[in-house]
């Protein structure tokens, strides 16, 4: 392969600025569509360079990509979008992690470098194309001048400018060797961009640049980084957030061979040792008494019942999330349906336990860190705050992530700070590795939620009124308090996916009642969507059932004014043979979702063991319309993966908290899907003439299809996710 990702990816912004200065005299105005203005330049060496791409004399094009790579493929997709519009030869493209600079590389939605929310391709798509189109125009204009021909007579093929009338050709590398760059660039608008019919790469599949390194063990994650003199760290964290160590007996831990230091931190006790195993063993020997905090008495099973009571109590004022018409139309309904739903805490279980390596200088005023993060500028800032130095004193190496799923973009970047604090204390580089048990005990979970729903149907089955109230803690408030405040303290992560933009619900009120119990919380692949898909799509089926309507037909009625949605449902109906009766106690369940502009429909086919209540998912059919499909096979892979990931939360994955302490410890009591659990999955990617929308999270809506399939198979509605065997049996007996 000619493409590669540099292991320790990023270069500092300083290098770029130094390079800019070095190129003084050759700089030209190169308006960046993303973030602030930035100049590009032809370097004296002959390379042509912008903030996003460098064309070398040998024809190699280096493209930087600001997306964290955690398997979702957007690092490749963003570079490919640039290559497409530049008309670069992909075989001669190298992809590198971009420097850390929010002003240039920040995600257009979040304004910082933050890979989350299935937002990379949708938000960068047009800005990156515009940027690459400007670079291509510079190449063409230089050739036009050199050959004395009108620019309009020139075209490009991958890596080459072509003059068809004379048959002359010049490679991008040759052009880079002499390119003069105008002070004012030729204007490029969206109308000038390459027509979709001419795409060479978009819509076809390329091998993701990170894949080859992932079949031979050479891919570098933070846990793999080794530097001279490195020690190993392990941290015993307070079981409840904001609790701190009152009394510590370090003696037994200190006596473990290989232990170098035992460090009291504000939030726990750190071990520094010569081997990972010594650090883990010493941590296990620590005896700590923790300060009592309000969360110390928290019990999740009881609390969820409290949440449910709050959700039902409509005299409590909620914070409105989505509202239209007059939900009072409920009183005119022929039939009303009412239900309470619950969902439990879920844990990310990314395969790489959290870890980071930090090397803090002896004087404590500079630091170098290596970590896997979805938000490198946030992590750098967190380390700088913890060390009380400026962010410019921290060099951060953004490594590949062994799974992210929302766990690695938090404001405090606590697992990175662990390494920084222990390195400062030990005056040596320290790699802190969380054990799997640490990763669960200190987990930050998708919050448990309680839901009250009521809807009214007219005689013809129209949904006259829709009332949905969610009661929960809000994960964003915990994981990123400044962002939560800047968003008017809306419970974004709890509520995403309660709105249903494709459904015709003219009179609706959807609101949130916030609980504050101090638990550690996080976004998790899809934030509110997987639980809310379970709740709302189950309830839609309950309405269909009340109206004695087929769930597919009922939804077709709800999306009657949305042709794209109808197309998804029609395709899905055919793929799944929805009309065909299933035997042997099997059930088919449907869900349809419009998540952030991506339309996805899924049908699950399940069987339920009537003696044990165990649910087996046999098949899942999925149809996705995410607009223009940039990398169709990667979209299919993401849908498959998110279906597998989220079927765990749907059926088996459950975290419980007693006396503020997480009760699960490892994969023996937190059951994630294995190959034997996985259904046959068939994904149909519809590429449509719409802007690309997100894909990484959307398969998580499968919760609704699975729940509806269980109801179809058993005749019993389970209103508590995960649908554990006990809950299924209990619903069947009710």
């Amino acid at each position, binding site marked *: 392969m000619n493409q590669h990702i540099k292991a320790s990816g990023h270069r500092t912004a300083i290098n770029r600025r130094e390079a800019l200065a070095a190129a003084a005299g050759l700089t030209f105005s190169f308006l960046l569509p993303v973030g602030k203005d930035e100049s590009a330049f032809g370097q004296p060496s002959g390379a042509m360079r912008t903030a996003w791409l460098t064309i070398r004399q040998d024809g190699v094009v280096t493209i930087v990509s600001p997306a964290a790579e955690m398997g979702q493929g957007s690092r490749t997709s963003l570079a490919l979008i640039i290559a497409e519009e530049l008309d670069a030869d992909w075989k001669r493209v190298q992809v590198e992690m971009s420097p850390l600079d929010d002003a240039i590389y920040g995600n257009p939605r979040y304004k910082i470098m933050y890979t989350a929310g299935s937002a990379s391709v949708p938000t960068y798509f047009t800005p990156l194309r515009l940027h690459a189109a400007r670079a291509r125009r510079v190449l063409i204009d230089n050739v036009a001048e050199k050959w004395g021909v009108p620019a309009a007579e020139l075209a490009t093929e991958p890596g080459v400018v072509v003059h068809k009338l004379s048959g002359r050709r010049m490679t991008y590398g040759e052009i880079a060797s002499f390119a003069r760059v105008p002070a004012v660039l030729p204007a490029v608008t969206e109308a000038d961009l390459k027509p979709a019919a001419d795409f060479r790469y978009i819509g076809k599949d390329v091998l993701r640049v990170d894949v080859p390194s992932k*079949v031979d063990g050479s891919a570098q994650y933070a846990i793999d980084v080794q530097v001279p003199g490195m020690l190993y760290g392990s941290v015993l964290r307070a079981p409840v957030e904001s609790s701190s160590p009152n009394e510590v007996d370090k003696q037994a831990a200190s006596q473990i061979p290989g232990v170098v230091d035992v460090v009291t931190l504000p939030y726990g006790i750190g071990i520094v040792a010569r081997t990972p195993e010594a650090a883990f063993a010493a941590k296990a020997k620590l005896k700590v008494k923790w300060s009592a905090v309000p969360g110390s008495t928290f019990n999740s099973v009881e609390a969820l019942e409290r949440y449910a009571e709050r959700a039902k109590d409509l005299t409590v004022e909620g914070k409105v999330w989505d509202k239209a018409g007059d939900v009072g139309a409920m009183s005119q309904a022929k039939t009303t349906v009412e239900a309470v739903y619950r969902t439990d805490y879920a844990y990310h279980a*990314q395969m790489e336990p959290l870890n980071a390596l930090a090397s803090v200088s002896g004087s404590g005023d500079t630091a170098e860190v290596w970590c896997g993060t979805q938000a490198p500028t946030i992590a750098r800032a967190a380390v700088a705050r913890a060390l009380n130095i400026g962010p410019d004193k921290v060099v951060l190496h953004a490594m590949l992530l062994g799974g992210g799923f929302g766990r690695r973009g938090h404001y405090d970047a606590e697992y990175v700070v662990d390494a920084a604090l222990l390195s400062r204390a030990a005056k040596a580089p320290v790699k802190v590795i969380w054990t799997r048990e640490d990763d669960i005990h200190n987990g930050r979970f998708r919050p448990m939620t309680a839901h009250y729903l009521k809807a009214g149907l007219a005689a013809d089955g129209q949904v006259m009124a829709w009332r949905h109230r969610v009661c929960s803690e809000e994960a964003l408030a915990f994981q990123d308090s400044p962002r939560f405040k800047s968003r008017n303290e809306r419970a974004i992560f709890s509520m995403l996916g309660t709105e249903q933009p494709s459904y015709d619900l003219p009179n609706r009120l959807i609101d949130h009642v916030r609980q504050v119990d101090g638990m550690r919380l996080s976004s998790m692949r899809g934030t509110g969507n997987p639980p809310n898909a379970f709740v709302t799509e189950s309830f839609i089926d309950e309405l269909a059932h009340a109206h004695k309507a087929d769930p597919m037909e009922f939804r077709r009625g709800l999306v009657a004014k949305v042709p794209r949605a109808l197309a998804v449902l029609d395709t899905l109906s055919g793929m799944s043979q929805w009309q065909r009766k299933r035997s042997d106690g099997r059930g088919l369940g449907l869900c349809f979702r419009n998540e952030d502009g991506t339309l996805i429909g899924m049908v699950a086919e399940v069987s339920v063991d009537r003696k044990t209540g165990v649910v087996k998912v046999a098949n899942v059919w999925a149809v996705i319309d995410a607009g223009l499909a940039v990398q169709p096979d990667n979209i299919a892979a993401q849908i498959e993966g998110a279906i597998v990931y989220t079927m765990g939360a749907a059926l088996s994955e459950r975290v419980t908290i007693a006396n503020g302490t997480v009760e699960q410890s490892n994969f023996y009591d937190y059951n994630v899907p294995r190959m034997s659990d996985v259904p046959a999955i068939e994904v149909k990617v519809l590429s449509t003439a719409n802007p690309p929308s997100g894909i990484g999270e959307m398969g998580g809506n499968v919760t609704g299809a699975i729940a509806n399939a269980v109801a179809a198979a058993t005749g019993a509605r389970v209103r508590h996710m995960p649908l554990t065997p006990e809950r299924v049996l209990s619903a069947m007996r009710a």
Partner: protein
Amino acid sequence: MVEFKLNGKPVNVDAGEDARLLWIVRENLKLTGTKYGCGTGLCGACMVHVDGKRAFSCQLSLSEVAGKAVTTIEGLSPDRSHPVQKAWLAERVPQCGYCQSGQIMSAAALLAETPHPSRDKIVEHMSTNICRCGTYPRIVRAIERAAREG
């Protein structure tokens, strides 16, 4: 001092005999393709071959591999040319990639014993290995391809 063969070459390791092979391979011998995932033999990220059979390296002490031949992902082939690796590329299996060394080592051990496994056999054998990105459908396809194309 414990001596064993690592990817065909003899190595001597001076560490406690109870030290786990996983950490010795990764931190002492600097072969980091073998991953730590759970430390309890439940996820398979640490899978290696010992005398040709797959083994959870997080569960093996150094003394247990004395005199034996250990193969890690780095020793499977010098250039991604093992049939399983070729099939993995062709099916574009990896996502985050963290579990994939272990998956590939498990798959290679399966095909060494059973060159043409049934679908049920593949699922049974591979259910030792967790992939949180959910690449299981592609893993199955890749193993079937490797069995077919060799």
